[in-house]
Every structure is written in structure tokens, then in C-alpha cells.
């Protein structure tokens, strides 16, 4: 009963914030709505006892991805009027596509012709660790896709570095190692022996 209430509340917030993502005028607000959507879906996952996924969703998407996203969006100077050009023209097509998708999902959820039954979720003892269960299959049954995902991330890193790390002529950068090695004795300060002179005429120099 309590769970149902929590589910409905979270689901309502989730749908509301998802709508907010696409309808907010300000891109920063859109991004923030997306953050809210992530947090509420994490809440839904916790209801399903998938606490590892829920927390990792918050950790990775909310804590890192969306921060960087906001970082970029806040710096952009997006002209919303040009973005909106052609919205009315393409809106009917979008509505049709959305309607088709909604009907499909509705139908798939509705239909049970192929003998698919949506059983009630299994409940576990308080000591049940979703993290351990996940680890048990990821490193055994699903080791191969897991490694593949790692390779994809590696390719992502290689691609990102290859595309952004360019030594352009004329740019200057600091070499911290060189900065650290600097010492006063070697070339930074030159002490010059000067004979002490006497000022002429007795005036202050």
C-alpha cells in the first residue's frame, strides 16, 4: 500500500519532469528537469530493490554526466527563437510518431498472447545484497559483454583524445615538472657583486 503510493508519486514526478525536459524554454531548466527525472527513476529502482543500479544512476548520471552537461549548457548562448523555427511545421509528424510509439508500448504491455506473465517482483530478505547478486552474474555469465562494454569505453577514450588533443602552434602551456624543478640557485636569481658606491652631491638617489 505504502509502496504503491510511493510508486505513484515518483512516477508522476518522473513523467512531469520528463515533460519538463522537452517543454522548458530554458535549456538549463531542461537539464535540471532531466536531473530530476534521473533521481526519481532511481527512486523507482529502489522500490524494485535494485539499489545498486539506483545509486549508480545517481552517482554517474546525476553526479557526473549531468554536471558536465550543465557545465556546457550554462556556457552556451542558445537562441531559443531560432531553435523553435519550424516547430509548428514538424509538430504533426512528431505527434504521429509519438502516438505510434505510445500505442505500441501500450499494446505490448497490454497483450499477453505469447504467454508472458508479469509476475509480482520477488521480495528478498533484508540482508539480500543486490550489489553482490549483480557482481555474481556480471563476472561470470555476462563476463563477455562486460568486457565488450569496457572495450567500448576504451574506444570512447581513444576517440575523445584523438579528436581533442591537438598540438596547435602558438599555444603555450605550463610544464609543471619544470616548474617544480626550478630552484633559486640555478639561474633564477643572479647575485651580482657590486662595489658600494658613494652618492655624489649628498642628495638622496
Amino acid at each position: 500500500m505504502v509502496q504503491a503510493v510511493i510508486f505513484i508519486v515518483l512516477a508522476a514526478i518522473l513523467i512531469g519532469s520528463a515533460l519538463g525536459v522537452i517543454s522548458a524554454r530554458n535549456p538549463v531548466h531542461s537539464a535540471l528537469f532531466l536531473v530530476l527525472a534521473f533521481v526519481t527513476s532511481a527512486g523507482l529502482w529502489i522500490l524494485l530493490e535494485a539499489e545498486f543500479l539506483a545509486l549508480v544512476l545517481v552517482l554517474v548520471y546525476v553526479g557526473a554526466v549531468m554536471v558536465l552537461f550543465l557545465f556546457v549548457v550554462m556556457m552556451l548562448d542558445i537562441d531559443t527563437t531560432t531553435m523553435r523555427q519550424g516547430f509548428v511545421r514538424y509538430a504533426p509528424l512528431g505527434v504521429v510518431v509519438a502516438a505510434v510509439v505510445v500505442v505500441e508500448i501500450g499494446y505490448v504491455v497490454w497483450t499477453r498472447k505469447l504467454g508472458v506473465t508479469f509476475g509480482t517482483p520477488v521480495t528478498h530478505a533484508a540482508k539480500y545484497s543486490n550489489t553482490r547478486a549483480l557482481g555474481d552474474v556480471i563476472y561470470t555469465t555476462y563476463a563477455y559483454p562486460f568486457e565488450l562494454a569496457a572495450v567500448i569505453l576504451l574506444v570512447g577514450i581513444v576517440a575523445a583524445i584523438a579528436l581533442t588533443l591537438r598540438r596547435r602552434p602558438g599555444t603555450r602551456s605550463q610544464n609543471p615538472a619544470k616548474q617544480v624543478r626550478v630552484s633559486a640557485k640555478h639561474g633564477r636569481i643572479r647575485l651580482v657583486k657590486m662595489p658600494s658606491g658613494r652618492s655624489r652631491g649628498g642628495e638622496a638617489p
Partner: protein
Amino acid sequence: MTFTLPAFTPAIPEMFVLGMGCFILLVDVFLSDRHRVVTHWLSLATIAATAWLTVTVAENAGLLTFSDMFINDSMGNVFKLFTYLTVALTFLYARDYFNDRNLFKGEFYVLGLFGMLGMMVMISAHNFITIYLGLELLSLSLYAMVALDRDSPAASEAAMKYFVLGAIASGILLYGMSLLYGATGTLDITRLGVHIAEAPDINIGVMFALGFIIVGLCFKLGAVPFHMWLPDVYEGANTPVTLYVGSAPKIAAFALFMRLLVEGLGGLRAEWRTMLIVLSILSMAIGSIVAIVQTNLKRLLAYSTISHVGYILMGILVGTTAGYQAAMFYVITYVIMAAAAFGIIILLARKGFESDRLEDFKGLNDRSPWFAAMMLIVMFGMAGVPPFVGFFGKLYVLRAVIDAGMIWLAVVGVIFAIISAFYYLKVVKLMYFDRAPEGMKPVEASLDMRWVLSGNSLAILLLGVLPGPLMALCARVITF
């Protein structure tokens, strides 16, 4: 929890490519630009060794491992070998091109190898998860390779388009897969096939899933109406990258069709046949007609790819063993021809001159009779003129279509083949009957490239004269 180690033997080539990819990545970091050629030869050696390993582990054919997510079968092994061949050709052709433009970086090779790994994973996939991951591995490498030339706005634009459309396609494919999973409760291809075959009636959810999967696959293959990215990417990317994008991934995409549609969703043959007929005819039509007005050879070849994709789909949609065999023959020969065509563009290009406009081919016969002849072979091959292999590709496909009783479809195929012959012959006319513009320099290229390119082009002729062994190979490995 009890757990037994999976058998690693069937996947040794994949593991080797991964290890060598990481190794080359590390080696490349410590190489100066003068010694970058080490990366080049190391990559080629990797491919050669992988091919040897693939042949060695081929005796394990039919073996499933990694919790049934990986399959080592003879069809996959043949696909893999041809994939290695085209990737190796790409690397060979690319060296001088990148050297001339100060783009000779190790990342091209590393991404190329990882992309090849992605194709191998796709070809050997026996589970939706691995199919998707392999596809993403390949796609990500391709996006990055297209964007590698940061100083070219066209390349950046092409990469952006490719990335956005490719991401949408991946999303659609994934969506279809998740619908299928929801309807059948399995991600395993064999079990899915059994499930579909035993299902009493066709669920509309499964039908939608099928639609999504076909849309996703056709996006990757470049069939009309999901072809929008193809001409822009072909034109915008550096020619060696275009060669990479346009050749080996077609083999992997075809393997996906075989795994997903034929093995997994074979029970829905009647349903996907209708969809594919529409896509096939549209592809042939758009590919053949729009190509006529192109002035850029890379763009023209993009449309030519689209029309060839139409014929490949035609072979698949027949739904008979002969059809699949013909389609496989078509894919392999098409990839060899595409490699040669882009190879010749690379050969003629030099610093500051891409040689990708049609007029750049004017009077090629005066500049280099030998390579004009090679280009002639490629163009005739693509057009499907008899002694060349393209003819047999089309012949086998059309024969399978006729055998299945779809004579009207075969007629449509022939009509578009004739239309498309027009623009291939236009290139030939430019080379032999037009005068070269003033100031065109003679062709210069390194020796290894000349030899390999000649071999590649002559293979089109050779396979055309003797199509039997390749067809026999296709017949042996496809037994559905």
C-alpha cells in the same frame, strides 16, 4: 555460486585483436612521427596473424561459448576472413594518403582495429547483448574515424550527421530488441528462434519489434529510406575512411541480418519479406536514379552502394538457402569492388587534390593506361557486365528470386541494373574519350600500393571468370 570457466579457444582471434589493439595503442604513444610506419606494419601483421588464428580455430566451428553469447561457425569465419582482407586493404591504401596530409596518426589504425573487433563480435554474436555491443563498438570507431580530420569542416559535419543518425538507429534497434525480449523473455538467438517458431500466433508486439529491428539494421546498412547519412559521410570523410566505412561493415551488417532475421526471426519470414521487398525496390530505384546527377565520385559511389544494398536485400528477402548464398556472394564481391574503387581514388589523390570529382578522371587513360584499365574493370564489375564478378552476383540473386516465383521483382532488378549501368559507363567514357585538363600530373604511388591495388582489381576479373569456388564456399557455409 558454482561457475566454470568458459571455453576461450573459439574466441582466440577476438582476444588477440583486443590485445594487439591495446599494444599498438601503447607502442604508438612512444613513436615519433618519423617512425609512425611501425604502427602501420604492426597493424597489418596483427590482421595477418588474426587471419591465421581464425583459420586455426575454425575446427571448433559450431561451438558456443561465453554462456552461449559467442558462436564460432564456418559462416562467421568466412565473413571474418573477408573482413580482415578489406580492413587490411584499407590500411595499405591509407598510408600514403595520410602521410601526404600530415594525418598519419596511430589512432586511425587503433580505431580501425577496434572497429574490426566490433565487426568480429557482431559476426560471432549469438545474443542480443553481444550484437548490440559489437555494433556500438564498430559504430563508435567509425564516428571517430570520420571525424579524425579536424581541419576539414566537411569531415566534422559528416561525423556529426553520422553520429546523430547512427545513435538514433542504435536506439531504434535496441528498442526493437527490448520489445522482443519483453514478448519472448529471451535474448538468446537460438532460443528466440524456437520461441517464435512454436508461438501459436503472431503477436503484434513482436511485429513492432521486427519493424524496429529491420529499421535499425537498414539504417546501418544504408537502405532507402534510411540512407540519408550515406552520401554525406562518403563525401565528407577522408577517402581511406570512406573506404573503411563503405566496405567491411557491410559484411558485418549482412552477418547481422543472417543472425537476427534468418536465425532468430526466421519464423516471421513472411512478415519481414514484405518489408524488405519495399526497402529493396526503393534502394535500387533511389540508388540508380539519383546517382546519375552526381558530379562527385565518392557521392556517386555512395548512391551506388545504396543500389547494391537493394540487391543484397533482394537476396535475403527470398528466404531460401539459395537466396542467402547469393546475397552472401554479392556482399563479398561488392566489398572487394568497393575497396578497389576507393583505392583508385586514393591512388590518384595527392596533397591538396582529392581526385574525387568525376572530371578529375577525364583522360585518365593518357595519364596512366594501367590504372585506367583497373578502373574500367571496377566500373564494369559494379555495373554487372558479363566477364566480371558483379555480373555473377546479380545473376545468382536474380536466379534465386526467379526460383522463388517472384519474377516481377527480378524484372524490376534488371531494369534498375540497366539504369545504373549508365553512370558507371559514364566514368569509363570520361577516362577513355575525354581529354585531361591542363596541368594534370602523372600518377605516382608507392610500389606496394600499386601491386595490391592491381591485385584487388584483377581479382574482380578473376572471380568473374571463375566464380565457382567462391560460390561453392558460400554454399558450404550457409545451410539454413
